[in-house]
């Protein structure tokens, strides 16, 4: 494990996560493209969690863990929200014209495009979503 961070489940907490990840990217001397990919995927994954994961209005904690793996970097996002597997979720269809365009649902497409791999498992009452990135 390289670093871990615990944040709250409000949109305002995303900035702290982004700052943490930027510091890790600088420390690891990652390429700008990799840093962008990681920042984008983290933003998308956390936005999904804070927006959709909780059935209540209460405070929850989200744990972020950055690790070095044999094939690159691994960013694990753990939350105690409702069970949700992002790897199995469907993306909205490509739209034909602005009138038919769906407004949301693009975060998943971005994560699938910018991360080298995605995996998910549920551990008790915890969603564990893991994104992979190159270590360069």
């Amino acid at each position, binding site marked *: 494990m390289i670093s871990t961070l615990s944040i709250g489940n409000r949109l305002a907490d995303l900035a702290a996560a982004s700052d943490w990840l930027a510091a890790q990217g600088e420390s690891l001397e990652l390429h700008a493209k990799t840093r962008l990919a990681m920042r984008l995927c983290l*933003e*998308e994954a956390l*936005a999904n969690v804070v927006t959709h994961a909780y059935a209540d209005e209460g405070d929850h904690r989200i744990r972020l863990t950055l690790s070095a793996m044999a094939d690159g970097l691994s960013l694990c996002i753990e939350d105690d929200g409702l069970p949700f597997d992002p790897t199995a979720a469907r993306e909205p269809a490509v739209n034909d014209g602005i009138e038919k365009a769906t*407004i949301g649902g693009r975060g998943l497409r*971005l994560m699938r495009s910018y991360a080298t791999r995605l995996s998910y498992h549920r551990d008790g009452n915890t969603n564990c979503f893991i994104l992979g990135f190159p270590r360069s």
Partner: protein
Amino acid sequence: MKMQVHTQPEGIAEILLNGDLDAKGTGEIEMQFVAVTNAESKVLLNMADVGFLASIGIRTILSASKILNRRGGKLVLLSPSQAVEQVLTTCGVNSVVMITHDRAAAAAALA
């Protein structure tokens, strides 16, 4: 995220954004952005100084484009950086909203 609005010839409202369109940045300008796109019919969104774009920002852009379209208006995106444009095309925004690096072409599209 900072937002400025300049009135260009032919009644085009140019919105200049400076900063990141992440959750924080989008939240900072959303109300003002919606107010402008609700009031105008020809909107040029200058993205040259947008350093980062997430889907929450794309949501705001598409929502505004839809509303403008329904009123017979139009939104054109101008000069996103390469990284921002890649996010836009990955999400298919380019197939529903014009993206150009040519100001004259943008003005012609909005005429």
